[in-house]
């Protein structure tokens, strides 16, 4: 009985998930563009692709039909850049004449823009 329990424990501890094989990885290449085209923009995913995008070029020889995946990642990253750029542009445009600062409540103004108010006074 003890032998059986130790055996089951050892088999559990030695269990490792199987590494995906080539057909499964090819399926990832084929299906990922669809999932990406329906995915919301998230900073985590965009950053992951930004850090791993150069690796795709190395995989061109190993997997067929990599073009759609590359295009899908490029489009996703462009959305990321456009969103970030538009947010920065919006903040700059709203704050072009201190417009945002004028309309903020006094408490929020004190909390968020203490330094800028100090600079204006100087």
């Amino acid at each position, binding site marked *: 009985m003890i032998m059986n329990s130790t055996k089951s424990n050892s088999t559990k501890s030695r269990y490792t998930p199987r590494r995906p094989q080539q057909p499964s990885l090819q399926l990832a290449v084929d299906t990922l563009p669809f999932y990406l085209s329906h995915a919301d923009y998230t900073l*985590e995913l965009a950053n992951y692709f930004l850090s791993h995008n150069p690796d795709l070029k190395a995989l061109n020889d190993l997997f067929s039909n990599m073009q759609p995946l590359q295009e899908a990642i490029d489009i996703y990253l462009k959305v990321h850049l456009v969103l970030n750029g538009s947010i920065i542009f919006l903040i700059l445009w709203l704050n072009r004449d201190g417009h945002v600062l004028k309309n903020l409540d006094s408490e929020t103004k004190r909390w968020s823009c203490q330094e800028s108010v100090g600079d204006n006074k100087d």
Partner: protein
Amino acid sequence: MRLTLNFFEESTVKEFFGPETSLYDRHSVERDIAINKLLQEAFSWCFDLAIEEKEEGINAHTLTAITHPLLLDAENRSRMRGLLPFWRGMRTYRRYRPEIRLFPAHPDDGMRPECIFELQQFLRDRSRAVTCYVDGKRYAALSLKIAEIFFEARSVAIFMPFASCS
């Protein structure tokens, strides 16, 4: 005799369901409502389980992945099982949820392609799926998971190239 029967049936339908509603429409609507309710009961626990037990959305990822048109093919579903270690096929769902047994079984993984198609349509229809609706956040989470698995395996693929690329 036939004319009499048809007249009788029509008059009965009009009497009970109104002049503009046919018997077929009435029953098809009720059938849709029943199927929606069964599917919601069968699959909403997958998303609830992911939140409660913090299983990193294991079941949610499986249901999100199955919305891809390529996965109508049983061979691709078996490949997906090889890609995602947490993949739970329809056979598993059928084992724990008797509601899904209403769908005809398939020898490969427990469900026929037409049933998978119906499930895909259900999961992508916000009005029908309600809590089971596969939205953009779930697609983003699945994309990140597949990308992580893919790029983690890439180093192995580069240094140990396979004999054939399918």
